[in-house]
């Protein structure tokens, strides 16, 4: 029987288990990446494991979430990360150089390789045929030390693309269409593998927009085959020698097939406050827009911003709308500037941000109260923008630029009709990217160029908390009962006032679940032992392991939920919290404040001999 592309790459890297869906497998990791939110814990754990040197082919450390460095704690973290990369032999991308996914895609992503990253959007380079998976920081630390990464063998789903995108429809609309059909849980336990004649009509940056946002479907990863377009993309960075011709066997069998006819797509938009609240743009046209942001790891490439720039050329954005462009990498910024597009956008009234995750996690450009913000980002979870009752829509750069011109949500096709001279910008690649990137990128310090050979820890960088082995008796109060789709942003917000404590778990834990109940941390600490209760899809969103580490630090022993998001569930195991699945009746019956006792011997239930256990 033939193999899917996913199976081929996994087979090449398999060190444990068999490629049977649902079975746990161990795979060898070729590359790792970390960013500054999760990276400090990755390296502190690497240190705690008493490792001497990175063992993977490549490890890269980026500084992209807190690049504004408004507090010395952030700057200290970046200095610590530089020192860790230097000490242990990783590449270090300096603050401001760009978002990890964009810089990695430009410099290091390689077809056929495995990549493990401590960021949920790590699957982005799947658009180049790399099998990339997001995981918790301890998994990255172990992988860097040469250990295998373990994951439940996902089902491989064939997403067959047919036809060709019509004018004004984009790659963003492809993934929004999948979110509309499948919901934020539709990809759980699956790798989405793209095939079909539509693939060759999409460039690599368009493919990476789709793979990046496969995370919002809950997918383990997303991947495209490689072709001439992949080779041409790599050649733009003088990396064509890394090209490998990859694709599924003709007789590959998939668990399921989803067909998307690209020619049927139209401009789509995700309404507040979930990425799967997708409707045609025309359905919400007329809504006044006060803020528009083009950028992020989803749509922050040079090629993503260029269509918006073309639409703005010689025009003025609406006086009631602020527009910000936040490129995904300094390289994208440099190219836009060198070709004159930055000046064109500034003349139209655009403000520029440095290349950072920034506004996507509520760090800068927080929307005004009671206002609409249109963003080309991948998430619009309530409150993520930095204001609790926000109203954030997700869309393509073309729809964003149209809204900036009109001052309200408008289908760009209708705006083109109205203006008479607005042409569809299409999707254009650069002839050649700036020389001097990759190993010669002035903002990437290679292992050979390291300037540190020992860790530099500021006063805000503490040690990694370690939980004691599990007790036979586990019991405690139901400290909090929550609903469905609780995100890691609910558990530990990533806003700047909180995230600056990411390397200091004692201090950070004071903010645990504060967006749901600001008395939680105090009550949990006083109780010393307790459980959390939640509905479906608990822990969706980012890979940040602080969302498991902080409840553990406060004494939470177990989480009882109707279902768990993949990475967060792994993080619960990694920090010794018991993830127990309950049915709807049990969920409905448990009240906050109830005393819960696990009747089974919890230690025995955790023994490898038991495959499934009953608790109560």
């Amino acid at each position, binding site marked *: 029987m033939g193999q899917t592309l996913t199976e081929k790459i996994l087979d090449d890297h398999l*060190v*444990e288990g068999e490629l049977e869906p649902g079975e*746990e497998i*161990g795979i060898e990791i070729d590359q790792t990446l970390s960013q500054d939110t999760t990276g400090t814990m990755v390296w502190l*754990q690497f240190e*705690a*494991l*008493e*490792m*001497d*040197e990175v*063992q993977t082919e490549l490890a890269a450390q980026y500084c992209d979430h807190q690049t504004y460095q408004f507090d010395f704690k952030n700057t200290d973290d970046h200095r610590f990360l530089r020192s860790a990369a230097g000490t242990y032999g990783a590449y270090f991308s300096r603050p401001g150089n760009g978002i990890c996914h964009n810089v990695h895609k430009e410099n290091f992503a390689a077809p056929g390789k495995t990549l493990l990253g401590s960021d949920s959007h790590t699957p982005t380079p799947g658009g180049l045929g790399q099998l990339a998976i997001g995981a918790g920081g*301890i*998994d990255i630390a*172990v992988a860097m*030390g*040469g*250990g*295998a990464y*373990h994951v*439940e063998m996902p089902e491989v789903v064939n997403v067959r693309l047919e036809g060709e995108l019509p004018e004004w429809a984009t790659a963003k609309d492809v993934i929004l269409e999948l979110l509309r059909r499948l919901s934020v849980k539709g990809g759980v336990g699956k790798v989405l593998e793209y095939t079909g004649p539509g693939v060759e009509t999409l460039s690599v940056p368009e493919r990476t927009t789709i793979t990046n946002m496969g995370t919002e479907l809950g997918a383990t990863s997303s991947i495209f085959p490689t072709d001439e377009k992949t080779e041409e993309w790599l050649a733009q960075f003088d990396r064509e020698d890394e090209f490998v011709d990859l694709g599924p066997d003709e007789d590959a069998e998939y668990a399921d097939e989803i067909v998307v006819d690209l020619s049927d797509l139209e401009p789509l938009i995700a309404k507040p406050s979930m990425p799967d609240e997708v409707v045609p743009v025309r359905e919400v046209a007329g809504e006044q827009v006060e803020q528009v942001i083009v950028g992020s790891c989803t749509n922050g490439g040079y090629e993503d911003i260029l269509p918006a720039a073309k639409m703005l050329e010689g025009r003025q954005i609406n006086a009631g709308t602020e527009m910000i462009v936040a490129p995904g990498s300094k390289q994208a910024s440099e190219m836009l500037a060198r070709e004159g597009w930055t000046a064109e956008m500034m003349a139209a009234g655009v403000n520029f941000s440095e290349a950072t995750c920034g506004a996507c996690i509520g760090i800068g450009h927080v929307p005004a109260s009671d206002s609409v913000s249109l963003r080309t980002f991948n998430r619009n979870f309530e409150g993520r923008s930095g204001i609790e009752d926000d109203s954030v829509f997700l869309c393509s750069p073309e729809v964003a630029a149209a809204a900036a011109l009109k001052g309200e949500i408008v289908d760009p096709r209708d705006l083109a009709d109205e203006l008479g001279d607005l042409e569809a910008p299409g999707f254009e690649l650069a002839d050649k990217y700036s020389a001097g990137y990759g190993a010669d990128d002035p903002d990437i310090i290679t292992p050979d160029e390291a300037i540190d050979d020992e860790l530099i820890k500021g006063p805000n960088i503490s040690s*990694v908390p*370690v*939980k*004691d*082995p*599990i007790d036979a008796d586990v019991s405690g109060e139901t400290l909090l009962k929550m609903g469905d789709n609780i995100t890691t942003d609910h558990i530990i917000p990533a806003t700047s006032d909180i995230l600056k404590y990411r390397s200091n778990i004692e201090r950070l834990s004071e903010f645990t679940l504060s967006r749901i109940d600001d008395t939680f941390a105090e009550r949990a600490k006083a109780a010393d032992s307790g459980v959390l209760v939640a509905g479906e899809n608990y822990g969706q969103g980012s890979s940040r392991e602080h969302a498991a580490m902080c409840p*553990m630090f406060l004494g939470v022993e177990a989480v*009882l939920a109707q279902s768990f998001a993949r990475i967060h569930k792994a993080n619960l*195991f*990694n*920090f*010794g919290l*018991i*993830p*127990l*699945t*309950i*049915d709807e*009746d*049990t969920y409905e*019956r*448990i009240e906050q404040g*109830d*005393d*819960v*006792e696990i*009747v089974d011997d919890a*230690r025995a*239930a*955790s*023994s*490898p001999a*038991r495959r*499934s*256990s*009953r*608790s*109560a």
Partner: protein
Amino acid sequence: MNDDWEATAYLDASERERRTLAAGGKLSLTKQRHGDSGAASPADD
């Protein structure tokens, strides 16, 4: 629950995940299994 009623909850976990839980987490488990060696390339399993 409250010494009053019982319900069934399920621990859907692999053998490796159960070992991790029992040890108190992956860091503890990895250190337990490989801490003495101080080697640079321990596998976690």
